[in-house]
């Protein structure tokens, strides 16, 4: 949990509210139309996922800054809480934003386990929650709710289209490998579903202990299985290590490496040569070459001195979504039904290409097949156009 000042627009009132909490000062509880819109941000700023939290925050603020730092004509106040990527603390942190700070929106998190804790509270308290990353399928399936939106992806979306792509490239027998945790397993299942539907065969599914990064034994096993290709899911430090080890073991030449896009996103500089030629699917790519993407990347670079990545895009779209919907309701956050309807109907012109919400509040979006070329995830083709998550078990689909 952390209340912090990220930019000047983060304003004095955050620390004041923190003061109020800690030092037991009196604060006036009534909000008026002229009051700032309170956006609660619950993302990891420390630890393994810290860089993701930062990119999402930057992206979201960029979108709102481009709107004159206003939402529906009202000023914006951010209340930031460090989720620490700790699911155990998620309900507590969420509660702090909802009932402690009375925020109008909550944006977060990165981590699927944290999302589970947040969703529980969001469903209970009815707070409008925008998930800018966490891809657990359940968020827009059995646990979907009118007040929960996701601007990123479902695990299924990022891996399912690769099944068809792999089959089209002539691979018939594939081994799959991922960390043994929920998101890893969901990614493998989605790929296997797509690959089997296309007519392929999965010869072996390997789950490696999370978050261990010693892969040599599994690579040896893969070498002895001699599949046509390997589909993998790893992220962050694990992805760097896996891709490097895979290459160093000499496997990449004989057994092509496929993966979920996260395996080569934000990690390419660290992976270097080893990642060249790896095929992945994701809802974003380099060299998409649309005007929106070019403008976004330049603006992001100018504002933060860093290359924008997929996480920044997801944050940016969360910001765009707030901007659009708040314009529709003219800054009125009191009429919750109208606000939710406005959010449902946003049409986002995203750097990743246009998308809109499904009935389950997950993006209906293009998935791209990308190949790593010269340290970039260059788009090869559109792997699936306007792909919608099946949203099995979501009560809003009826």
């Amino acid at each position, binding site marked *: 949990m952390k209340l912090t000042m990220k930019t000047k627009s983060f304003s004095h009132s955050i620390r004041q509210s923190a003061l109020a909490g800690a030092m037991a000062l009196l604060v006036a509880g009534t909000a008026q139309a002229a009051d700032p819109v309170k956006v609660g941000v619950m993302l990891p700023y420390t630890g393994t996922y810290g860089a993701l939290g930062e990119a999402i925050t930057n992206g979201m603020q960029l979108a709102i800054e481009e709107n004159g730092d206003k939402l529906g004509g009202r000023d914006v106040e951010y209340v930031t809480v460090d989720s620490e990527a700790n699911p155990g603390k998620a309900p507590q942190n969420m*509660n702090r934003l909802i009932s402690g700070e009375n925020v109008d929106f909550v944006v977060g998190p990165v981590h699927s*386990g944290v999302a*589970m804790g947040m969703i529980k509270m969001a469903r209970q308290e009815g707070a409008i929650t925008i998930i800018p990353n966490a891809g657990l399928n359940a968020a827009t399936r059995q646990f979907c709710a009118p007040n929960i939106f996701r601007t990123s992806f479902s695990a299924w979306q990022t891996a399912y289209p690769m099944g068809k792509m792999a089959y089209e490239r002539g691979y018939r027998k594939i081994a799959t490998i991922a960390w043994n945790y929920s998101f890893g397993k969901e990614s493998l299942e989605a790929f296997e579903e797509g690959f089997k539907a296309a007519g392929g065969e999965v010869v072996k599914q390997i789950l490696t202990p999370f978050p261990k990064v010693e892969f040599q034994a599994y690579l040896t096993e893969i070498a002895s299985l001699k599949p046509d290709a390997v589909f993998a899911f790893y992220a962050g430090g694990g992805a760097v290590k896996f891709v490097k080890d895979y290459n160093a073991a000499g496997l990449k030449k004989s057994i092509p490496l496929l993966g979920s896009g996260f395996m080569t996103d934000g990690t390419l500089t660290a992976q270097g040569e080893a990642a060249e030629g790896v095929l992945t699917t994701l809802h974003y790519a380099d060299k998409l070459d649309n005007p929106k993407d070019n403008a976004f990347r330049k603006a992001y670079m100018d504002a933060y001195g860093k290359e924008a990545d997929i996480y920044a895009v997801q944050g940016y779209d969360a910001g765009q979504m707030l901007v659009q919907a708040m314009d529709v309701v003219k800054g009125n956050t009191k009429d919750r039904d109208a606000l939710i309807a406005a959010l449902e109907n946003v049409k986002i012109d995203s750097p990743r290409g246009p998308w809109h919400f499904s009935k389950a509040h997950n993006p209906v979006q293009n998935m791209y097949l990308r190949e790593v070329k010269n340290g970039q995830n260059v788009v090869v083709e559109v792997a699936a156009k306007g792909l919608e998550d099946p949203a099995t078990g979501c009560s809003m689909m009826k």
Partner: protein
Amino acid sequence: MYNTPRPISLLLGFLLCVLAFYPLYGDLVFGSKASFFMSKLTTIVIFAILAMSLDLLVGITGLVSMGHALFFGLAGYVLALASPEYEAASIWYILPLVLLCCAALGAVVAFLTIKTSGIYFIMVTLAFGQMGFYFFNDAEFSGGSDGMYIMLKPDVSLGGIQLLNLDEKQTLYYLSLACMVFVYMVLRMILRSAFGQVLIGIHANEHRVKAIGYNTANYKIVSFVIAATLAGLAGFLAASQYGFVNPSQMGWHTSGYALMMVIMGGAGTIFGPAIGAFVFEILHYVFESFTDHWLMLMGAVMICVVLFLPNGIGGALLSLVQKKETTGEKNDG
């Protein structure tokens, strides 16, 4: 140390009143945040129970466990798994079941670890905690690393009449407070009993206690089982509060923080670890509110406690009171 000095009893009574009357003054002092702070206090009270249960091991018996969160987390999982999906479980069977599971696992872990001592005991309990963590992290039936929900909170009713509604924040707050007082009383009772005296003896000099003819291993196992059961009570309340359980609750960081609460509050004083839980959690909250670098501040606090406050807040209070008493006696004489 076996009888709490009067000034400290008074202080504890006062602090308890401050907590008990919170709903009366909460709105006045904290305004719109009052309800959030009540939830926060509930969480802290639950940690206080966890810390006190750990004190039975660390402070009384002298067994430093780095895996105490195992039972805290297990209780939540038992509650989640044993609750029917579409109706609330009755507390009259679910709570005993939860406690029984924690006691049973406690007995198994104790049986396997009791032969080790000192640093080995610390490490083996850590290993068991990690085993539990990975078991639930990998398990399909409990939602893996995403964790799982308790859809409906346990139902507390008798003869068809609902006694407590755990969905109400205030009810849960008072239930947790009552449990904290209950656990404190239980531990005090144990401390005064012959059984407790043997535990204290084991802490001071196990060989001597053994030489007198006590089977110290059995005493240690029973102590471990009681501590595990009380940790289970804390875990039950924690899972009931938000209706969400996750493997991270039994990771070694949670165990480490619980240990820190015990030391910060004063190991062996029973009331100290509860105070430690409050100080630790409030510091954590305040640091996070003001700076990005709260990790560093928390680390610094932990180091300072170890270096400058080895007997904890409770220990410092006790020696303060005892010093006053002795000087008082001198004056009298």
